[in-house]
């Protein structure tokens, strides 16, 4: 029942997106959609995925969306094509094909479906004995299908470098303060002449405004960082792992940058350092694989890393999760810093 209600919320959100013209609302709706999907996944027992989607789809994606709206200085779509006949036909045909394809599928939650009887049972039955990790998602992700995860880390690395290539140079025209650009765009009523002083905070007001946020934010940053480390270390026992930890770690820096400005955050995490750690994570991951080869195993075979295979697996999983965490955190921070402001080290 709760599945259906969550799915219905998602349908409503998605349909709303078709009609919305306000792009800020589009970004927020997309975040809501992701968060609802994450809730649905918790209900369906996929907690790791839910965790990731909540931090990425509802968190990072929304921040990136808002940042790019500020940079493109647009708030409204010019016009919405709600009905677009060719697109509608394509979509209906595709949807009909998919529904036709579902007709022979096993029902929702059927325990005898092939995917529950063919490959998966081994993971559920033997993974603890083979890898020593109770979280099956972590053991499959990091060990059995560890090469996919290396690919995934590479994709994030690619995105980080790609954004550096595209925007790292600084911009060709000065960007207005994103908040002003987003808030002061068309569609907002101009302030009445007499109310200027009241509505727009002066310098002292600005400071007070920031003081509350800064105190609140400062209080939050250490727990966020702590939580990131907890997620990183606890990924073998519960939901979490390098990817989620990296995103959370980066979000602490993003918060810091929002409160104290990008240059201050940049001072903590300079561009060159980030670029190094971005590369380092991938190298750690791929290097663990090479170490396996040098010690006489196959690539990404962690069993040979220690005297005892299970011990080796645990060691390998901790190391590669660390690699994933480092690359993801650096990539997210790089992407945010590049979006949020010019990269001074790139301009010179």
């Amino acid at each position, binding site marked *: 029942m709760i599945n259906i209600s969550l799915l219905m919320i998602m349908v409503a959100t998605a349909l709303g997106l078709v009609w*919305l013209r*306000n792009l*800020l*609302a589009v970004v*927020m709706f997309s975040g809501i959609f992701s968060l609802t999907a994450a809730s649905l996944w918790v209900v369906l027992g996929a907690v790791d995925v839910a965790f990731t989607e909540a931090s990425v789809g509802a968190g990072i994606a929304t921040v990136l969306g808002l940042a790019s709206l500020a940079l493109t200085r647009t708030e409204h779509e010019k016009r919405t094509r709600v009905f677009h006949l060719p697109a509608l036909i394509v979509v209906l045909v595709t949807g009909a094909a998919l529904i036709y394809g579902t007709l022979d599928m096993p029902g929702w939650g059927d325990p005898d479906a092939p995917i529950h009887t063919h490959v998966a049972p081994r993971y559920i039955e033997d993974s603890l004995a083979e890898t020593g990790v109770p979280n099956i998602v972590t053991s499959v992700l990091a060990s059995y299908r560890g090469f996919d995860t290396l690919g995934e880390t590479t994709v994030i690395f690619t995105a980080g470098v790609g954004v550096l290539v595209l925007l790292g140079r600084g911009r060709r025209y000065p960007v207005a303060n994103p*908040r*002003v650009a*987003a*808030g*002061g765009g068309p569609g*907002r*009523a*101009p*302030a*009445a002449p007499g*109310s200027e002083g009241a*509505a*727009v*905070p002066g310098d002292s007001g600005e400071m007070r*405004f920031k003081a*509350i*946020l800064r105190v*609140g*934010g400062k*209080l*939050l940053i250490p*727990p966020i960082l702590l939580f990131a480390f907890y997620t990183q270390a606890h990924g073998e026992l519960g939901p979490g792992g390098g990817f989620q930890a990296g995103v959370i770690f980066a979000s602490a820096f993003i918060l810091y940058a929002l409160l104290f400005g990008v240059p201050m955050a940049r001072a903590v995490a300079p561009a060159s350092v980030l670029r190094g750690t971005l590369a380092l994570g991938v190298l750690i991951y791929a290097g663990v694989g090479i170490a396996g080869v040098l010690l006489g195993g196959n690539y990404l075979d962690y069993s040979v890393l220690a005297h005892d295979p299970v011990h080796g697996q645990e060691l390998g999983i901790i190391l590669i999760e660390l690699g994933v965490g480092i690359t993801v955190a650096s990539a997210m921070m790089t992407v945010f810093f590049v979006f949020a402001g010019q990269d001074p080290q790139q301009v010179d």
Partner: protein
Amino acid sequence: MVAVLLDGLSWLCLVAGVLAALIGGIGLLRLPDVFSRMHAAGLIDTLAAGLIIVGLVLQSPSWTVAVKLILIIVFILFTSPTATHALARAALHGRVLPWLGDRSSPSEGAPSSKA
């Protein structure tokens, strides 16, 4: 006896929380401008969420779960007011004026869309 009492108390909190969320939701839709809507949203953020979590704490099977839930309350109590504050200042900064007039003629500053 204690178990029944705890259960009853927990349900009381949950129902009260849901009601608060409902009222907040109605307020979000019906109130005239950003600031008053924010007030309704604050109700959901703090009271509704808080009550629901307290209800869940009373239901929790082990103390680790309870501690985690209490941590969430603490977290919400820190973040929600800060976020509401930031939102209000951003609205002022964006020159959105509070709605002061009567319902028939909304002031210029009242936003036209619900989004």
